[in-house]
């Protein structure tokens, strides 16, 4: 290229106008005469990222490497510039360690990263020679990639792509050669040596492109069979969910499995919606019903049941971290946990709009502005009263979320909040730029400030009343126990006395105000107003990228073995949904329904997509992300605990075993049972950390040992009301009992062959109850029981 012309090009870079796109650095610095001065933020820093220098295993490590430390994944330009400055020689650029190390002129543990005559080398050298300066930080407006999607006919094909950076000052540059590029799944698509995207297998995945604080996930799809487009069979799509799922399947060449049997549907939807197994009579009645709308009617019936409210109240307690051992008033932790659960339970049962429910938690303080302290203390005490306790669930707000020991610090509040209500993990940005999202430490700090102006203690204005109460009840006045509701105080409250309570309150004096940034959106916080109000308003905006989506995604994951975005609490730019139109449809529909939770459950469970058989056909055996068949899922810990009681209960007790929610692990007992041996073995979340991964539904050795030989299993069988009822019956009908054993556990009738095998076993057994006990044991130990299929 003509040198003069090139210089002109570069010169115009500084004053570039919109529309012009600068060619890639790999072209501009290909010529040994290139004289452009690269920019630190736009060129040098991304190049170091591209070369891997600021990776975790290299100089991005928090200890640095070989005495040289860069910020992890870049973006702390000042710090990185300073670190680099000590490794360059402006007068003799060639002698800079920055060049000598990666070219291995000087020994480099990280190996050779650069060759001497390369454009990369030249870029760094020119920057050093020009004084190794850093300009003030520029704002990236957007990052764009062309094409916006790639579809390959089959493995082996490859295609180039182009990434352009659009800066706030109007300049546009081709930065393909400066991006960090990663495939979400190398076995489907990868980037080859020439920088092209190559199909390495079949299926769909994303290529993640990062530059500056921009991140783009580029979809790549390679059909898994040749049955795509016109060759795709006729598949009925009954609902909008089905239509969107089948649209994706059609592109992939995957044909969905048939709709499942009535038995499978009844069991599946009962577990998923209410955490409860159907009873034998429910199974028989459902099978006998031949009306066309019986599945829809069943869904309605389940949505009305108290078990629905209990199961989903507990799922919301999972999300919000309701743990009795984490309250600052630890002595009454169980009471507070019960109140927390009851507050949510009431709202789920009433089908309160989800945004309203969340606002009741988000905006909570211990007392409202118009309530005086004396009244507040009286009210809080009245919830502990033994005789005719006041109803905590009637309170408009639920402050216990904020009074946990785990969220005493503003940064922990920010992390917990982002997890609970936005499904976003900000932990990364606490210490370095998020590797897969645009969040920087500064974003994290701004977000944290929103939660800084709150205290759990006592307002100055209430100090007198507070201390008088403490003295009258003997609660500690001083030290870090000050104001704790002790066991003695709780006992007084149970008798009807008013005791002292600390309160969670907004401290105006420390509050930020003015315009601030909430995860990428500018919001205005009026002076003296609780910043959480502005956050809640932002969450309720129709196109908020997180609030409704995070919940919809978690609900979806309850019905399938993965979320549309998975992990469910990791909404980030590099973790796109497996079916974006579907997530869009459900989120928009959810918002438009007025955040109606039942609408969402209906929309999902009524679809054929939810009602698919788990048995595969020749096209979908390997599909686990596109919902072409049901994937068997291990029952949740709480459901197992309750089911073991139910399957062994006497006929006469079946109703109350299911309906006494105060004795059920899916109900009131959940917070008490978390952390017990059984619940740990089966992975019930203890709600100790802000991560949905606390719930673990993976099979394990201990679970199998438990089901085969744990004392609890033996006790359930030894005390089984059902077996006792049989032992005292006059002439038990063995065929009927074998049928019942199957109906109780796997919610279906046994086949002829199965009935015969069981009959043989009963005949060989010492007694009919012993035989049936073993049959129940065998059924409990079958995959069919422990899996929701």
């Amino acid at each position, binding site marked *: 290229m003509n040198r003069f012309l090139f210089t002109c090009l570069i010169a115009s870079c500084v004053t570039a106008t919109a529309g012009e796109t600068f060619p890639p650095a790999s072209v501009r610095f290909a010529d040994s005469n290139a004289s452009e001065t690269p920019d630190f933020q736009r060129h040098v820093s991304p190049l170091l990222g591209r070369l891997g220098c600021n990776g975790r295993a290299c100089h991005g490590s928090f200890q640095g490497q070989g005495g040289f430390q860069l910020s992890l994944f870049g973006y702390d330009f000042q710090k990185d510039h300073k670190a680099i400055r000590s490794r360059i020689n402006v007068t003799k650029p060639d002698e800079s360690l920055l060049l000598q190390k990666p070219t291995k002129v000087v020994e480099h543990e990280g190996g050779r990263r650069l060759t001497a005559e390369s454009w990369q080398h030249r870029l760094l050298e020119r920057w050093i020679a020009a004084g190794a300066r850093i300009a003030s930080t520029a704002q990236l407006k957007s990052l764009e990639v062309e094409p916006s999607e790639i579809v390959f006919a089959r493995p082996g094909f490859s295609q180039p792509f182009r990434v352009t950076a659009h800066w706030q000052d109007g300049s546009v540059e081709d930065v393909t050669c400066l991006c960090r590029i990663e495939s979400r799944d190398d076995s489907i698509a990868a980037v080859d040596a020439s920088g092209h995207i190559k199909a390495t297998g079949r299926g769909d995945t994303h290529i993640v492109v990062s530059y500056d604080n921009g991140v783009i996930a580029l979809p790549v799809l390679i059909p898994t069979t040749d049955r795509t487009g016109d060759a795709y069979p006729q598949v009925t799509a009954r609902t909008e969910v089905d239509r969107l799922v089948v649209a994706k399947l059609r592109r992939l060449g995957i044909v969905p499995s048939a709709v499942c049997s009535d038995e499978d549907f009844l069991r599946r939807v009962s577990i998923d919606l209410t955490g409860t197994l159907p009873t034998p009579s429910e199974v028989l009645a459902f099978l006998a019903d031949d009306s066309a709308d019986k599945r829809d009617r069943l869904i309605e019936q389940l949505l009305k049941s108290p078990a629905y409210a209990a199961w989903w109240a507990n799922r919301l307690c999972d999300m919000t971290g309701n743990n009795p051992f984490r309250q600052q008033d630890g002595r009454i932790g169980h009471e507070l946990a019960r109140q927390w659960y009851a507050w949510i339970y009431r709202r789920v049962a009433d089908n309160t709009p989800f945004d309203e429910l969340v606002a009741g938690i988000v905006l909570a303080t211990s007392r409202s502005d118009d309530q005086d302290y004396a009244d507040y203390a009286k009210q809080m005490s009245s919830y502990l009263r033994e005789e005719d306790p006041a109803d905590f669930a009637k309170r408009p707000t639920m402050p216990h979320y904020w009074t946990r020991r785990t969220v005493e610090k503003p940064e922990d509040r920010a992390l917990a909040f982002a997890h609970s209500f936005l499904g976003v993990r900000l932990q990364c940005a606490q210490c370095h730029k998020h590797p897969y999202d645009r969040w920087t430490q500064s974003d994290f700090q701004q977000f944290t400030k929103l939660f800084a102006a709150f205290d759990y203690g006592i307002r100055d204005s209430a100090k007198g009343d507070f201390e008088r109460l403490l003295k009258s009840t003997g609660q500690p006045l001083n030290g870090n126990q000050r104001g704790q509701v002790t066991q003695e105080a709780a006992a007084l409250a149970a008798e009807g006395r008013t005791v002292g309570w600390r309160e969670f309150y907004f401290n105006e004096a420390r509050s930020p105000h003015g315009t601030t940034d909430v995860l990428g959106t500018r919001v205005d916080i009026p002076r003296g107003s609780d910043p959480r109000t502005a956050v809640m308003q932002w969450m309720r905006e129709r196109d908020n990228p997180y609030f409704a989506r995070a919940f919809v995604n978690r609900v979806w994951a309850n019905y399938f073995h993965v979320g549309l975005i998975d992990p469910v609490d990791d909404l980030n730019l590099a973790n796109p949904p497996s079916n974006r139109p579907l997530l869009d449809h459900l989120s928009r529909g959810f918002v438009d329904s007025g955040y109606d939770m039942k609408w969402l459950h209906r929309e999902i469970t009524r679809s054929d997509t939810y009602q698919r058989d788990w048995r595969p056909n020749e096209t979908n055996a390997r599909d686990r992300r596109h919902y072409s068949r049901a994937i068997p899922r291990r029952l949740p810990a709480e459901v197992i605990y309750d089911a073991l009681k139910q399957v062994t209960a006497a006929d006469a007790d079946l109703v109350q075993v299911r309906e006494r929610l105060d004795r059920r692990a899916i109900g009131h007992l959940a917070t008490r049972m978390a952390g017990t041996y059984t619940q740990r073995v089966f992975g019930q979340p203890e709600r100790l950390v802000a991560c949905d991964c606390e719930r673990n539904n993976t*099979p394990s*050795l*201990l679970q199998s040992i438990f089901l085969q030989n744990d004392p609890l299993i033996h006790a359930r069988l030894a005390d089984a009301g059902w077996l006792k009822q049989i032992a005292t019956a006059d002439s038990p009908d063995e065929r009927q009992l074998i049928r019942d054993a199957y109906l109780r556990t796997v919610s279906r009738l046994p086949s002829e062959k199965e009935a015969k095998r069981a009959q043989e076993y009963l005949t060989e057994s010492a007694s009919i109850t012993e035989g049936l006990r*073993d049959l129940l044991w*065998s059924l409990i130990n079958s995959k069919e029981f422990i899996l929701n299929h």
Partner: protein
Amino acid sequence: MTQLTRRTVLKAGVLGAGLSLSQLLRLQAADPSQQDAGRSAILICLKGGPSHQDSFDLKPNAPSEYRGEFRPIATQATGVEICEHMPQLAQRADRFSIIRGLTHNLADHGIGMRYVVTGNRPIPTLKFPSFGAVASRTLPAAEDVPTHVAIDEDLEGPGYLGTQYGALATGEKPRANRPFSVRGITLSDGLSIDGFNRRRKLADDVDNLFAQYEGLDEEVRGLDRFSQQAHNIIGSPRTRQAFELSQESKTVVDRFGTGETGQSLLLACRLIEAGVRFVTVIVDGWDTHKDNFKEMRGTLLPEFDLGYSALLDRLQDRGRLSSTVVLASGEFGRTPKVNGGAGRDHWARASVALLAGGEIQGGRAVGASDDKAAEPAGDGYSPDDLAATFYDHIGIDPSREFRTASGRPVMLVRNGTVIGGV
């Protein structure tokens, strides 16, 4: 299905990449040589926080309100003194090393112990795995033996590694002359192994829904595999026998001590001999807010002296000491000054730990506390350092990375440095 090659296995190991359940299943099926009979470890949790200045870090020259009632005695190891109430250990002081000046600032039982048994200061966003869980992940045992047994409970659990690496917890502690049943292993009254096997045959016939689709989903494969392994363990003579303390002679039982401490340590030896890779033993009672000296002199120190010395002897006699690393530690130490009730309260600024076995040389006392046993002299060692040292001696690289369920890479011990000279 692609077979995982040896190389992929090594690569996975080196990168410390998270293994999904299906990968784990494939790996174990493909590479039984992983299950070498080599290294094992025992963690003795002195729960409650033992008084360091009345056991292994005495300060005879401190003012009387600090130094307490006990005198130090000389030991087999030159220059190393311990409390007079542990004569057996004094004779064997060449076989274990004392780490003094251990320090942190979490003087609460729960989070203090969590810190010590994970080597990571607890944070609200991530649950770290206990030593035993990490061992379960990295040192799988044979098919019919559990990898990690906790007597009687695992204090912290598998954290981010996932429930599949949880401990088999016995649920109770053994004691001489008292029946001992192990949760999940002991068969209940009236059920014999034959009865169990007969029932199991019925179960095999009942469990047929997924016939022909066994390979389809990892959930189904995992259940099949674990169910078979559970059956192997429950039916395994060597696992059952390992738990049968009644097979030991009265001499041996007495040598360890007939209480829970001695018998738990005896059980730990038997389990290691049977091929269990990691045993967690909880020794309770060290939270001596009142009557510290009476409790220590009366039961705590004599029982520990007897049991721990017997454990060292037994491992040595059976040729297991060189392959079994033994760590004993509480969650913290106790207050330098004796309180009004002749007790000592929680104190995390200084405590002690013991290391033995493997390549621990023994006979050393590294680190030190100040003249009142109140603060470390110098920087001291953190629980992170202790964990790094323990892992290093078991042969697990403390800087190894694991991936959490969400794919986040986490270094096993993030802030620890291996303590030298032990």
